[in-house]
């Protein structure tokens, strides 16, 4: 199953190779051409010669992860690894999690001093990242250096599984869920040029998407994302952002984008016409690749379709498979209505 493969693929921001290879394998022979650019974006093209509008779909391949910065030598630290975050990770989710490091996927665990040896006042405070280590079982620094080096990236070692009521858990649904939707969309037939941009480095500032949009120069762009969902017990309704299982979310405003109101309304109405559940994303924070895309060149019309992800940026994220399916349905409906001329530039 593609979402499982993509979720378990190794792609911390700046190290998207494994994800790119999975996608390339999936689309091989199913699109007219595929190119990688100087940043590492993978751009798939279909019907480049067809009449416009030129449509760009975007999903970022990268995930939040960790980077090994030091292999400790001497004392009780000997052989343990110091690390820092690649992208936005709350240090409080790191304790007691397994990780996979570097190209050889060396397993390690993030541990901390046991509760028995913590003073009562220590227990009240989160364990800061500089008190955490990755333990690969090395006897000493030399033993660790045999398999790991500073600069190696790491990801959470979370397995994909379906559970609950039509839900799945796994790592990096932000934004492998978007990648899965985009792979699927690139296999639909449309009467206009369709560009699929699988981008790099979204998590450190929407960097790949900006270059990709410049190269493609689309008339319309749609970012496919996993977005914040915190509709849980005790969360105030204004802080929930999206509701799990209530369909894909459309953006009004986030940290990087004030939605193109006409395009957002077009997507909303399309969803309604096709009987697809849809919701507005209700927080201002966070952003997605469209925030970079719409400012490229003379400006680009479009928006984003997001799948609610509970515990986004945490080791185990949760999505509703209904939301994923409905996001796919909405995307197909939008592409079809663009073909039918329902949205005029």
């Amino acid at each position: 199953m593609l979402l499982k493969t993509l979720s378990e693929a190794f792609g911390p921001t700046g190290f998207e190779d494994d994800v790119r290879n999975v996608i390339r394998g999936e689309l091989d022979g199913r699109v007219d051409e595929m190119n990688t650019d100087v940043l590492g974006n993978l751009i798939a093209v279909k019907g480049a010669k067809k009449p416009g509008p030129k449509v760009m779909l975007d999903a970022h391949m990268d995930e939040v992860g960790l980077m090994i910065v030091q292999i400790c030598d001497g004392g009780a630290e000997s052989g343990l690894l110091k690390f820092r975050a690649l992208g936005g990770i709350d240090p409080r989710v790191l304790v007691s999690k397994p990780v996979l490091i570097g190209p050889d996927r060396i397993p390690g665990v993030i541990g901390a001093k046991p509760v028995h040896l913590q003073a009562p006042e220590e227990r009240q405070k989160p364990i800061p990242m500089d008190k955490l280590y990755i333990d690969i079982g090395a006897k000493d620094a030399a033993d660790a250096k045999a398999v790991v080096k500073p600069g190696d990236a790491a990801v959470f070692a979370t397995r994909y599984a379906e559970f609950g009521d039509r839900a799945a858990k796994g790592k990096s649904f932000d934004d492998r869920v978007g990648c899965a939707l985009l792979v699927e969309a690139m296999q639909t037939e449309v009467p206009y040029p369709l560009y699929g941009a699988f981008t790099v480095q979204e998590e450190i500032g929407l960097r790949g998407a900006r270059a990709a949009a410049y190269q493609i120069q689309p008339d319309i762009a749609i970012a496919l994302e996993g977005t914040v969902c915190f509709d849980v017990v005790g969360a105030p309704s204004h802080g929930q952002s999206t509701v799990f299982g209530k369909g894909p979310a459309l953006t009004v405003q986030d940290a990087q984008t004030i939605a193109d109101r006409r395009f957002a309304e077009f997507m909303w109405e399309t969803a309604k016409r096709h009987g697809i559940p849809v919701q507005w994303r209700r927080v201002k924070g966070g952003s997605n690749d469209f925030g970079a895309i719409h400012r490229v060149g003379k400006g680009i019309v479009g928006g984003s379709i997001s799948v609610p992800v509970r515990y986004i940026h945490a080791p185990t994220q949760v999505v509703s498979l209904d939301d994923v399916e409905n996001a796919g349905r909405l995307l197909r409906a939008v592409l079809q209505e663009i073909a039918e001329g329902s949205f005029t530039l």
Partner: protein
Amino acid sequence: MENHQPLLEQLMTTHAGPGFEGAVRDVIVPHLRSYAQAVQVDVMGNVVAQVAGCGEGRRPRVLLAAHMDEIALVVARIEAGGFLRVVQTGGFDPRTLVGQEVVVHARGGDLLAVVGSKPPHLTAPEERGKAAPLSDLYLDLAMPESAVRERVRIGDRVTLSRDVYLLRNRRLAGKSLDNRASIAILLETLHRLQQLIHQADVYAVATVQEEVGLRGAQTVGFAVQPDVAIAIDVTFGAFPGQAADESFALDAGPAISFGPNLHRKVFQRLVDVAERHRIPYQIELSQTPVGADANAFQVAGPGLAAALVGIPIRYMHTSVETGSYADIEQCARLLAHYIAELDMAQVEDLSCY
């Protein structure tokens, strides 16, 4: 058979908390049967396997005990939206539960759940300095409230869900290495004893409810009334920020405990055996009664000669407890040789002060 590591890995992914040790018991009883003449389960759920010594007349009686239970949680409340609140059955640091995957042992079958965490996008800077108490954490079953209420009941038990990770140097990480590592030591010891001649009758015991107060040990110590009662339990692996006397190196052999609660002659004998057989060992000092089954053994029935040995593990009471299989083997060698050398003269000397 090579060793019991595959069994240990199986035990680490088996779920058994205080008072619901059945799943682990079911896995280990057949293995104990392959070594013992008799295997019984008592009213508390402790498993007692007897391996007879050789020789006529009164033989030394030695009890080896490892607890089967792991720390767990219990469902205390079903909240609006179907989210679960839990309380402790054992000592979790709530900070290590954030973002964990857990298993809710419901009547109709096990259910996977995720312990929620707030996304960094919505977290204010001042919140980052705070650690949530257990009462603020919740379990997410990704099911509508009605389905949750149908399947989950107050009182359902919850344990961690974690694969085993094989690290370098025969080290392994996962949940419940405390104290499944010591179950492995128990079986490795019985395996080695088959190659040795021993006078002592051995009672290999897997105890229940250690994590909530050494309760199984209390009754099994009374029931068996051995001459020597040795608890096998994990201790603290060395890690930055810990005191030197609370830090034991991995791959440096078992820790043998010393302190008022433990019989000094049994301790000394264990050290002597380690020296003579060139078994690496470390000494752990306790000023108070130990937090392990040996605490209950000392005062069981008429009073017993108690000892405590075990391997160091890092990250105790988390889902990534990390220890070395080499230490498990060294601890088993120590116990097998100790038992093989135990005789009635030593037993009689235990009461001579």
